[in-house]
């Protein structure tokens, strides 16, 4: 049996490139970010008490909840994992292409790797779609009206501000430029099922996306992204996010960077897993909030 959500939380790294990148980007977000990797601390934070007996009860309940397949907590994590694997694979290919591009004999290989902006746009929108699917898996459909559901979504993304800032910076602003959010819809318009199938995360998500066939999935993804862009645009404007600022924020923790922004994005794709790292933390918090209410 695979690990429960809290076990996954416990196994998250305390200090590596992912944590440093997130710490760097969190300097742009008011309120900052704490790398919460201890289930017991999380539980006593939610419960407002560190009575070991209560903490133990919450923990046991959380494990029961995350083992139940219908509850969707672990399904959300497997979504994040699928996206993460795909990001790493694509990033790795592009790093290889960059290296290969410098060697005379294998230069022609570099031309084969898919580093196009369209693909990057698909990658971003699949991440956004995964985010929405994970939201419904973890939280259900809260509230009795669409307005209440919208409030709930905003609350969720507000809670995960650093996560969203990382998504906007690493997957939109750095690889696609500062006007990425405005170009995204145009870029998605050029996407066909061929591009979709080039991303391994699509294969992992296809069964969870509503609708049948690539075209239906693509239209769901585009509608989801439309909604998200509306929110993300305001978010980026509020915090004044831009590619330049993101690079400077990252330089405070991971050291000076001399390459272009696109290379930085490739590097981050290949060597960090910010998306699943913050994802596990977000799911764990919601799970603990429920377990604390049910003990």
């Amino acid at each position, binding site marked *: 049996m695979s690990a429960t959500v809290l076990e996954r939380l416990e196994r998250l790294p305390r200090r590596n490139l992912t944590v440093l990148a997130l710490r760097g980007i969190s300097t742009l977000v008011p309120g900052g970010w704490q790398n919460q990797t201890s289930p017991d601390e999380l539980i006593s934070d939610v419960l407002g008490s560190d009575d070991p007996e*209560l903490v133990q009860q919450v923990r046991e309940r959380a494990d029961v909840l995350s*083992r*139940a397949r219908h509850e969707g907590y672990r399904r959300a994590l497997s979504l994040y994992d699928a996206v993460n694997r795909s990001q790493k694979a694509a990033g790795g290919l592009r790093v290889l292409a960059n290296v290969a591009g410098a060697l005379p004999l294998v230069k022609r290989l570099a031309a084969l790797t898919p580093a196009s902006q369209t693909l990057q746009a698909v990658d971003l929108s699949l991440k956004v779609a995964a985010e929405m699917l994970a939201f419904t898996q973890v939280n259900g459909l*809260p*509230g009795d009206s669409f307005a209440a559901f919208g409030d709930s979504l905003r609350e969720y993304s507000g809670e995960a501000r650093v996560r969203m800032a990382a998504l906007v910076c690493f997957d939109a602003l750095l690889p696609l430029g500062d006007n990425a959010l405005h170009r995204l819809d145009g870029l998605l318009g050029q996407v066909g099922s061929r591009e979709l199938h080039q991303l391994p995360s699509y294969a992992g998500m296809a069964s969870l996306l509503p609708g049948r066939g690539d075209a239906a999935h693509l239209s769901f993804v585009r509608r989801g992204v439309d909604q998200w862009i509306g929110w993300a645009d305001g978010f980026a404007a509020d915090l004044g996010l831009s590619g330049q600022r993101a690079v400077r924020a990252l330089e405070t923790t991971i050291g000076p960077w001399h390459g272009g922004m696109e290379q930085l994005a490739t590097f981050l794709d290949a060597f960090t897993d910010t998306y699943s790292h913050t994802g596990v933390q977000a799911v764990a918090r919601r799970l603990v909030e429920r377990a604390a*209410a049910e003990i």
Partner: protein
Amino acid sequence: MSRSLRWGIGLLLVAGLLLGAFLVLPFRSWLPGGTVANIATKEVVNGTLFNRLFPKPQAGEQLVFTQEKRGFSQARLKQGAEVRALLSISDVASAPASRNKFIHTEERLQSWPLVDQGSQASALLVADRFQVKVIGQGSGLDVQQRHELLGAFDLQALAALSPAAAQAPAIPSGREALPPGKGSPLRLPFPGLKRPAPQAQPAQVRAAQPANRPSFFPNRANAALEPAA
């Protein structure tokens, strides 16, 4: 390799594949472990029904629903950007152990047993079936404020949601418990055998349920049309 051996291995492979398919593919949701504590989702009251029983936010406060699952609904009480409390209603059918803490308590709120857990949480057990809980967040709430919040839930309507209130048999205590009528192994129409008279109770329960549980969409549509109170 002899011909019969090849056939044997082939058949074994086919049988193995069929068995694997049966265990893994479309029947997964039938296997145990799918639901919390292996209690059928039908036996747990849907969280959608809890939403309208939450306290109405006062001026300057906002109630944001955060989770809604079968047998559970949770909202945050916010004042501006600060989260003051987590409010939740859960069905204890899937967490029978959570009832135990109410056994020894003398405290009552609107006649339901009340318990304080740690310094920031208070819980109320309504109709021996639903747990209502307030957990203070951020700067925290004192006991008095938490109890006031608990009292602000629509506890009467919540008690009415309990199947016991609809004159149904008590909650089955384990997964082995089957609804009455389904437990009898064979009902063959042997002429010599006299059938027991059909029990009236289960039929009543089944008839009572639809009235008790409005369907998903009308409920949502009504709520969307009603002005927010």
